[in-house]
């Protein structure tokens, strides 16, 4: 009975964190797909979406989120490496990559920061607490893919899932969220 009660709280927390993140991501996607939306409104909705995602990490200790400052040089370099990997297929194909206007660039930074704090930060920590690293990696990747289902055509979801898996595996292997944040920001600014 005691063990059930002890496990109930992490389970409830993980479900609540996951549901909140999904709601914010889907709401953001639905707002962004409104036809003929003014660019200022889009930027505002994206920034608010990023902030709303980041709020889910409030209250978690920095080390549980993978946000420590130890080995900071390697974490930053790791972020550059992740950014290079995320951009490599697009760079090799040499298709259109529009340079984002300043407003959308700020929104891209807010969204990528918010998503990392939410998915690989709070959700990963909640699932890790519940079922260990395998559940945290698989669970955060599945929710990450589901969260992008409304904003991306179905054929892109494989690449989205693979990116989520890569970032979650980095979070687990290096116990680090700084590199996924940097890599994600670079990828979002460039694509």
């Amino acid at each position, binding site marked *: 009975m005691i063990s059930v009660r002890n496990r109930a709280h992490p389970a409830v927390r993980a479900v609540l964190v996951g549901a909140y993140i999904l709601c914010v991501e889907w709401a953001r*996607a639905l707002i*962004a*797909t409104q*036809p003929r939306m003014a*660019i200022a409104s889009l930027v505002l909705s*994206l920034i608010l979406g990023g902030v709303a995602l980041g709020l889910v990490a409030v209250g978690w200790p920095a080390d549980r989120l993978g946000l420590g400052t130890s*080995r900071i*040089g*390697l974490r930053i*370099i*790791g972020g*550059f*490496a992740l*950014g*290079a*990997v*995320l*951009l*490599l*297929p*697009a*760079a*090799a*194909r*040499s*298709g*259109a*990559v*529009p*340079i*984002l206007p300043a*407003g*959308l660039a700020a929104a*891209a930074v807010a*969204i*990528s920061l918010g*998503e990392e704090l939410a998915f690989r930060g709070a959700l990963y920590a909640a699932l890790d607490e519940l079922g260990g690293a395998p559940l945290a990696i698989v669970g955060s990747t599945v929710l990450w893919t589901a969260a*992008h289902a409304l*904003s*991306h*055509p179905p*054929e*892109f979801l*494989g*690449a989205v*899932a*693979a*990116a989520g*898996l*890569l970032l979650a*595996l*980095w979070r*687990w*292997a290096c116990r680090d969220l700084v590199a996924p944040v940097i890599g*994600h920001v*670079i*990828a*979002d600014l*460039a*694509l």
Partner: protein
Amino acid sequence: MRRPALLAAAVVTYVVAAWMVAPGFYDGFGPQQPYNWTCPPPQAGANLKPSSGHADIKVIGGVSDAGSAFTNDGQIVVGFLPGALDATGKTTISVDITPLPTCPQPPGIRFVTNVYHVVASAPLVKRASVVLVYSNLEPAPTAIYQAADPAGPWRSIGAARDAMPFTITTTSASLGYFAAGYPQTTAASGVLRIGGGSQVLPIVVAILIAVVLLAGLPLAMLRRRRAHGEGEAEEDEAKATSKS
């Protein structure tokens, strides 16, 4: 060893998955739907023909109302301010947009969108806004081009800076034929171009790789050497303790 191997496997999985869908992973700023081509590029895959569009602009009190004409697939939108069209003697003004069935490539310009013909039943007297969607399968255009005849001459009518991703927008003082593209220099299409073509991605990736190699490897070696040194010191300490 297990962790680096899993990470390497994840990298390979991502690169393969992203290679199959250009531009790979993006966070909502990519094109929402595939471009409908008149002349699809080889990498386009299944293609729908581009659609045409029609709009009737009301005339209220002898002045043409604000309105916009767009194709059903949304690949071109032409917007009119109140009084943009000469409404003399008219109650409505019709605007028609049709994609050109051919794909002209005038000398010195590389078009990356379809060519659209925009006609109105009244002359344009105020500038109209033109928004063209472009595909992620071709290099980004730097300007919208306009001509009175598809055979040319084509002239650049520029591009605004704050367009949405994968759209290019400008204003035009006359209607006619519109397409988005970039000036063709000696470099072939799809080849790295710096600046106007915004093909900076390969450079960004190259810089990131260079930074990782130049800074990451020495950092990692330094850490390993330091860890090795600490290990040896601990071993010496242990030996000294056992001797005493």
